[in-house]
């Protein structure tokens, strides 16, 4: 927390696209790295999980070793010639969700070194404070004359190098703050460390009764612990963000003189011909020149029904190709693509959130000047009273040591660490340090529909089929990987009929011969049905009969519970969707949400959120698509599922790792509880200061009182934070 005022570089920048683009580009260029495969395991949580996963992976031929890291929920597989695509099904079979991560983006980074560096400093400060404390206890219990001086000297010999080494993070950050003309938390801390060390050396030299070496080193120790907790939280958040970018590696297949070449998306130029395989994401805006297929544009527009793509059709980056291979002529790539144009909208919205000042910021802003004034006043007061510089400096140092922001430095990081640890266990990653605080203020929740409240995968809603029809439908659907076909296989009971000449016609459907007659399953115009009713449907033709099979989107698990609990907590819940009115009304009715709007454009979503904010409401936006991105960025707080587009995940503060939507409701509760704890912690540490500062001002503060106030306040603040877990 003490870092908040100085560590802006660690925050995500104002423009998420700018953050993502270079990283994504680096990923694409680096390609596969060494033999290591890293998989993310969002559901692993216990000893049995470790054993299961490691055993299953070790059994795969070619795998030399597999080691699970439960803290990061990852498994590192040392395997030559084995790819993640071979390993993910293995884990899926034993019931673990796994996603590929790019090792290039996740190798030990500078941040990792920073963490070990901090731990080392904590270790040294801890060692020094224990040893000095042993000597100090002797001094407090009445050692005097030569013995006391000797003990002070030994303490000083331990303390001075320790402060020089362990205090570096504070000195460095205080120096940065001063050069920028600001007074952060670290300026009074550094001043206290230096002044107290100097006066203690002076006192030891002159055989004085009080030396603050114990207090100085303890101050270092507690503050480093706070700094380390703060670092951990941000490291987890950062690695989460890295993991999410690592999930999607943007490459494109370029057709150059008939040869296929895989290139980073950033290298595409307008006019290039690219190939988009079935199941692949369209890497750039373009016009279809060859091939026929269907396109899922739910992430861009929220529509849940696939759209046909024929030569001449214009596609946007981010859409998913479903059935057949498509050749595309690029019309706009990189910065000019529609994806980038939408993220420009995000950049404008993002700056609004950057202005949010956290509780810690506000506290440190008023704290630093107050402490400096208090110390200066006590120095001048005592100088005027006694005309003795030595006494005056002693008192000023005691004031600085006692008002040290030990507890303040721990108050926020300890709570945030406990809260984010708890939410992480439930499957929610917090990406931004102030996200919990903002989440606690939320009073309105806006959900996107497709991909957020629903899984984005269709489910059979109804079909007017007899046993024969079901058998034929199953047989035809079994021959295709189209989402609607998969839904039929999963959703219709019965035995598949025997069919011949089964073939998929990309962009239209599946056809075959059954008992000598041609049968077709697919789009209405192709099957020969007149498609008058709206909604997602596919058609089955057997001879001259035509059957309609209806689909609805399946609800995300936990969606109903999350909505119910949010409403129970007194929050206003709304649905804003780009999908058609029928589908949205259906989902809203199933969830019991009265306020919903359908056919909303991305701009309208952002405008609605802005309008709500203008009414003084604090909006939590939950969404996954590109059409939600601007709204996610302009909302007071935002959550997106891990299946979301990377632009949406970058724009949001929190990411749901699992499939369940339930943690959204938990998160609001935990956020409110943690803000309560932070306030309690501030109250506690202020209380300790109110009791101890008069002693210091009166010149009665001994190193014993300083040590007591410091450790008692730090420990009680930490314990209070741990109640959250």
């Amino acid at each position, binding site marked *: 927390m003490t870092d908040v005022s100085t560590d802006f570089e660690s925050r995500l920048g104002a423009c998420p696209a700018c953050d993502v683009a270079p990283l994504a580009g680096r990923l694409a260029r680096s390609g596969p790295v060494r033999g290591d495969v890293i998989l993310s395991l969002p559901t692993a949580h216990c*000893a049995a999980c*470790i054993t299961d996963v490691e055993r299953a992976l070790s059994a795969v031929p070619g795998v030399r070793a597999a080691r699970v890291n439960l*803290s990061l929920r990852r498994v590192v597989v040392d395997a030559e010639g084995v790819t993640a695509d071979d390993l993910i099904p293995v884990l899926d079979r034993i019931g673990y969700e796994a996603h590929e991560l790019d090792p290039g983006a996740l190798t030990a980074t500078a941040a990792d070194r920073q963490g070990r560096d901090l731990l080392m400093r904590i270790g040294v400060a801890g*060692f020094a404070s224990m*040893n000095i404390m042993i000597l100090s206890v002797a001094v407090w219990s009445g050692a005097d004359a030569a013995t006391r001086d000797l003990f002070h000297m030994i303490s000083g010999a331990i303390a001075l190098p320790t402060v020089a080494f362990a205090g570096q993070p504070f000195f460095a950050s205080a120096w940065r703050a001063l050069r920028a003309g600001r007074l952060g938390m670290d300026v009074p801390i550094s001043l206290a460390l230096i002044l107290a060390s100097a006066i203690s050396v002076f006192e030891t030299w002159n055989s004085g009764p009080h030396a603050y070496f114990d207090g100085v080193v303890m101050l270092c120790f507690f503050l480093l612990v706070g700094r380390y907790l703060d670092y951990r939280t941000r490291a987890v958040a950062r690695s989460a963000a890295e993991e999410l970018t690592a999930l999607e590696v943007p490459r494109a297949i370029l057709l150059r003189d008939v040869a296929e070449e895989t290139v980073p998306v950033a290298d595409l130029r307008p006019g290039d011909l690219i190939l988009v395989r079935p199941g692949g994401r369209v890497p750039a805006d373009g016009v279809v020149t060859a091939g026929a297929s269907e396109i899922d544009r739910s992430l861009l527009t929220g529509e849940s029904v696939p759209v046909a793509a024929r030569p001449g059709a214009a596609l946007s980056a981010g859409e998913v190709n479903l059935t057949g291979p498509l050749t595309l002529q690029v019309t706009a790539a990189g910065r000019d693509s529609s994806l980038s144009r939408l993220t420009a909208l995000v950049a404008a919205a993002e700056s609004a959130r950057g202005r949010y000042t956290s509780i810690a910021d506000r506290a440190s802003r008023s704290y630093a000047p107050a402490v400096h004034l208090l110390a200066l006043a006590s120095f001048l007061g005592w100088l005027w009273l006694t005309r003795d510089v030595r006494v005056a400096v002693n008192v000023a140092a005691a004031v600085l040591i006692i008002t040290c922001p030990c507890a303040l430095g721990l108050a926020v990081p300890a709570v945030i660490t406990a809260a984010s640890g708890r939410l992480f266990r439930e499957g929610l990653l917090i990406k931004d340090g102030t996200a919990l605080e903002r989440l606690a203020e939320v009073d309105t929740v806006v959900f996107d529909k497709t991909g957020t409240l629903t899984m984005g995968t269709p489910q059979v809603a109804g079909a007017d089929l007899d046993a024969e029809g079901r058998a034929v439908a199953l047989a035809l659907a079994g021959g295709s990987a189209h989402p609607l076909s998969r839904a039929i296989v999963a959703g219709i009971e019965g035995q598949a009929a025997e069919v011949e000449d089964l073939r998929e016609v990309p962009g239209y459907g599946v056809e075959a011969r059954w008992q000598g007659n041609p049968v077709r399953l697919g789009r209405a115009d192709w099957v020969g049905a007149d498609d008058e009713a709206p909604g997602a449907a596919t058609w089955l033709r057997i001879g001259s009969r035509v059957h309609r099979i209806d689909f609805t989107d399946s609800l995300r698990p936990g969606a109903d519970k999350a909505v119910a609990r949010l409403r129970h907590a007194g929050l206003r819940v709304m649905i804003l969707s780009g999908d058609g009115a029928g589908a949205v009304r259906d989902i809203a009715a199933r969830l019991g949400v009265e306020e919903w709007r359908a056919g909303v454009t991305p701009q309208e979503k952002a405008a609605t959120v802005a309008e709500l904010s203008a009414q003084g409401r604090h909006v939590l936006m939950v969404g996954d698509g590109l059409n939600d991105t601007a709204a996610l960025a302009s909302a007071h707080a935002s959550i997106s599922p891990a299946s979301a587009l990377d632009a949406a995940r970058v724009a949001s503060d929190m990411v749901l790792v699992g499939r369940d939507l339930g943690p959204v409701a938990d998160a609001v509760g935990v956020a409110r509880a943690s803000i309560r704890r932070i306030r309690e912690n501030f109250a506690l540490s202020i209380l300790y200061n109110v009791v101890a500062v008069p002693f210091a001002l009166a010149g009665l503060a001994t190193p014993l009182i300083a040590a007591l106030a410091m450790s008692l306040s730090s420990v009680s603040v930490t314990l209070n934070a741990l109640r959250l877990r």
Partner: protein
Amino acid sequence: MEVLVYLIPVSLGLGGLGLGAFVWALRNRQYEDPKGDAQRILSDEWDDRPKP
């Protein structure tokens, strides 16, 4: 008070030993996965012989 001549170096030495052990553990990457290590001890898979 002559005893201090031994006791202080002894106490510093013991503390230094602890610090050394901590640095060793840190270098050995024993703080990489605290949660996993806490759970691994519950597994009985390699109880009879060490993992090859």
